[in-house]
């Protein structure tokens, strides 16, 4: 009897983990739909067939890398150039992967990590890495599901339908993703001055790299890495934390939902 109920509660918790992931993935999916819609349009303008653009979205699941990729392919660039640009633009995912590995439940096996690793995007990572409780497989799968669907369907829509959505609507919807970033950082910065400091340094470096004459030539993906590494290193140097997880719980940072 007791074994039975234990099993039941395990199923329930797996389900609720999955459900929570699904819920957290919803705003990401909204943002992705509109961002990938514009990617679909770009593919069509560059002369790709609709299924080619959709195939790229389904196998890459990343915005900046895909945009650079189709532009390189359309311009007749070499495979080496293509590989190098993908590597540099997407290198930030390595940093995110290491960071996220610290917040993943220890019972998630190596092969499972290899599968889940596919879903590390800026947004999915942001939500998963700042989660208070360790990330489980059902949570991460739930979190990936809707964004993947949104990314694929948006690309399909853009590639097939082209410019049907009014520009004002797509413009505004791209903010969904940034709104979500803010929903993660602001509550954490509100309760921990250390996090606030790190975020301020990151913003300053990022703006510097965006506006400074020579630095602004750097690719977006690389600029993000530099900004994040500098800010996190300064934070770690000035305000080392004893235990990341406990710190968050005590200061009440991270994602609340």
């Amino acid at each position, binding site marked *: 009897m007791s074994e039975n109920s234990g099993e039941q509660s395990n199923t329930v918790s797996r389900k609720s983990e999955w459900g929570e992931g699904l819920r957290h993935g*919803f*705003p990401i999916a*909204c943002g992705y739909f509109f961002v990938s819609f514009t990617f679909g349009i770009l593919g069509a303008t560059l002369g790709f067939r609709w299924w080619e653009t959709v195939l790229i979205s389904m196998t890459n*699941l*990343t915005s900046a*890398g895909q945009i650079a990729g189709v532009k390189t392919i359309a311009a007749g660039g070499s495979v080496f150039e*293509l*590989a190098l640009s*993908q590597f540099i633009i997407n290198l930030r*995912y*390595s*940093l*995110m*992967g*290491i*960071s996220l*590995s*610290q917040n993943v439940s220890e019972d998630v096996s190596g092969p499972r*990590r290899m599968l889940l*690793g596919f879903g*590390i995007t*800026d947004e999915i990572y*942001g939500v998963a*890495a*700042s989660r208070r409780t360790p990330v489980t497989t059902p949570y991460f799968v739930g979190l990936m599901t809707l964004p993947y669907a949104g990314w694929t369907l948006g690309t399909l829509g853009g590639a097939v339908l082209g410019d049907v959505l009014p520009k*004002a609507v797509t*413009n*505004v919807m*791209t*903010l969904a993703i*940034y*709104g*979500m*970033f*803010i929903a993660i*950082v*602001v*509550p954490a*910065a509100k309760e921990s001055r250390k*996090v606030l400091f*790190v*975020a*301020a*340094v990151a*913003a300053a*470096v*990022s703006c510097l790299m965006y506006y400074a004459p020579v630095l602004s030539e750097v690719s*977006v993906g690389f600029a*993000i890495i530099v900004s994040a*590494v500098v*800010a*996190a290193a300064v*934070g*770690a140097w000035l305000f*080392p*934390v*004893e235990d*990341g997880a406990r710190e968050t719980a005590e200061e009440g940072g991270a*994602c*609340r939902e």
Partner: protein
Amino acid sequence: MSRFFVCALVMMLVTYLVRAIPFTVFRRKVRNRFFRSFLYYVPYAVLTAMTLPAALYATGSMAVAAVGLLAAAVLAYRGRGLVVVSLASCAAAGLATWVIHLLG
């Protein structure tokens, strides 16, 4: 194989390996205090660096973007969840677009 498939395959492999290898290899908890603190701060640093200043240029109008971001910041400060903050940000920006359209 056509050039497209070769290119698509290269894109897929590079993107996937860059993501999955570090995530799979790093399994133990980091013990080094500096590196652990560093990793603790990374998410907030990454998200902020991606938002500023890029988000200001995301909508084609800096004023519209600023209104949306400000709405998000206020609601997030008041402890609203991801979905609410995110959609409210779009709604506020939509409203700003409409107001600017009326005025303009």
